[in-house]
């Protein structure tokens, strides 16, 4: 059973590693992901919007 478990663990890890390598996946960090409202996407909008203050 231990051997079978290790086979499964190894297969999962390698699959995850391959997937991470191909997609550029990263471990969770202080990076946040979101969608900026369409109205804020102009050059001036970028300056006005204050949602993204990451790390504060």
């Amino acid at each position, binding site marked *: 059973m*231990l*051997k079978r*478990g*290790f*086979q499964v*663990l*190894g297969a999962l*890890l*390698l699959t*995850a*590693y*391959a997937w*991470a*390598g191909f*997609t*550029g*996946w*990263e*471990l969770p*960090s*202080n*990076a*946040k*992901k*979101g*969608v*900026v*409202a*369409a109205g804020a*996407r102009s*050059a001036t909008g*970028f*300056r006005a919007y204050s949602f*993204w*203050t*990451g*790390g*504060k």
Partner: protein
Amino acid sequence: MSSRAANCPSCGGEVLFHAGSSVVTVCPQCRSAVSRKGARLESLGTVAELVPTSSPFRVGATGKPKAQGLKPFRIVGRLQLSTGEGTWDEWHVSFEDGRYGWLAEAQGTFWVMRPLAPPSNPPAPDFTQIALGQRLDFGAYGHFTVTDRRQALYASAEGDLPFAAVPGSVFMYADLSGADGSLATLDYGDDPGVDAFFVGRQVQLDDLGVEGLEGWSQRKVSAKASSLNCPACGAGLQLKDPANTVRVACTYCGSVLATPEGGASAEKFEVLARLQKVPFKPLLPLGGEGTLRGLSYAILGAVLKACTVDGVNYYWREYLLKETKSEAYHWLVESNGHWTLVAGIAAGEVSTAPRLAVWRGTRYRHFQSTTARVEAVLGEFYWEVKKGETTDVSDYIAPPRILSEEKYEKEVTWSEGSYVPKEEVEKAFSLKAPLPAPEGVGSNQPWPYAESSRGFMRMLGLFAGIAVFLFVFFNIKADRKVVYQMRHDLTVAANDPTLSPDAASEALTVVSEPFEIPHSGNIEAMIDAPTDNTWVYVGAVLLEEATGQAYGFGLQSDYYHGVDGGESWSEGSRSRTVYVGHVPAGRYVLRLEPEMEKGKAPPYYDLRLRSGVPRMSHLLIVLFLLLFGPIALGISKARFEGRRWAESDYSGGSGGGGGGSDDDE
């Protein structure tokens, strides 16, 4: 090997001295032991009638050995000895080259013993100084272990003997086991000083090339079928080893039957102890046959043994097996459902150290020492087994192997065994009902993953290899493209005393020109600033123009240093990197909002974004997680060994004696 004829001084009948080594011959007419000293003949007394034994040899038989180093020989005499516990034959052989020796049989093994000059440097100890288990260094002869020290009665004889002794006299002797597997005997005669020294080696019966072997054929036949009715209950008993059996415990009523001294005939069994019921139920069918690990066995008997530790009795069962081809005796030991197949080994081949025994290069760790006693017996036995008989037993283990020393009053024996899964025993003896499941961990039970652990490590190597291969592949295909790189000046706004921190931060906030990220993947963002006992933090947002998808992250450069108590110190880092995962290809802008300590801002900070950067840390994480397999394996082994050694002398607690608990019976 010329014969010399003479007349018996007792009866006048003709006696023949068949070999130059013959000092005594037994007169075939009157059974006088006739000794010759030069031309003078003397009767030393009358020898008793020979007790029938199952030896395959006979006086007058010749042998043309195939065994290397042995000359053709003739059996010229037979000495019958008894210790009171059993009778055995030793055969006087005269070799073609004029030398003599002894041919002896011990539990189905055959030995040719040759006389050598008694050890002189160092000398052999006297009988009073020799002790069981003692290690003896006999210089050029090698190292020996004392395995047997006792007295034997010169019970009877036939033909010629190479020594003169009065029939019925008692000899002292010590048997030794050599480190090279040889056997030696120190003969003391009737005084403590060494009279003779014999060293021998084991030979196969077939290799001796003894013509005829009629007795052997008869023994084989008798061994196959012999029965008797129990004199206590009348039940019919089938003996598997009638030629050697001296004790029978009736499998129907439990009564113990014994032969009179030396009598090996089934008709002669008498009731030694009468019982009303069998004292225990063997797990294997006595009299059954089977093939275990390539050898055919007959199950002769079962012994229930016990030891007492801290007032608690622990039981186990030992089944006596006879290997049908070699006629050697083996044991199948069952303790708490764990089975071990055991065979005797030469004590001289075992060397011991504190908590350690070594046999044929294998190191066995001391597990347990206890006093075992016979609680009950069933079946047939080649020795005079007795209820209550005790032995001091020491077990050493190298799972699945076990090495055991058993010390009796006058004898020490060593045996070596191997763990046998119960399924193998069931199959070997075609058992209809399954044997009880093993309880706990057996003393020499192998760790269940011992065999597969090597495969486990191979698998680990394979997984690690694949991971490294993938890492190399990702490195080759990675573009590591710099998609943004800019130096941002902080001097003006950051050091303007009229601006509040929020106002300064807002004044320094920049939004980059759009840039392309060519491939989906990760983004490496790196800040580098000449911070000196200060810090700068940049809140960054990477924004995909078309979709509004935004990725926010923070980067900090801080570096502090100084001297404290005469020692310089530093902390922080001017350069730091963060990674943003899974960023799709597209057109992006970067919004940067720096914060810093007022009046202490570094002059600038550099910021660089690269896309498609392979990560060594991911590989290390995978390799680390893969180690969980071997770690789990190690934990499993540690727990298994912990349970094993909890039953040993080194448990730290009271421990067990190695068998089932008190309520087992």
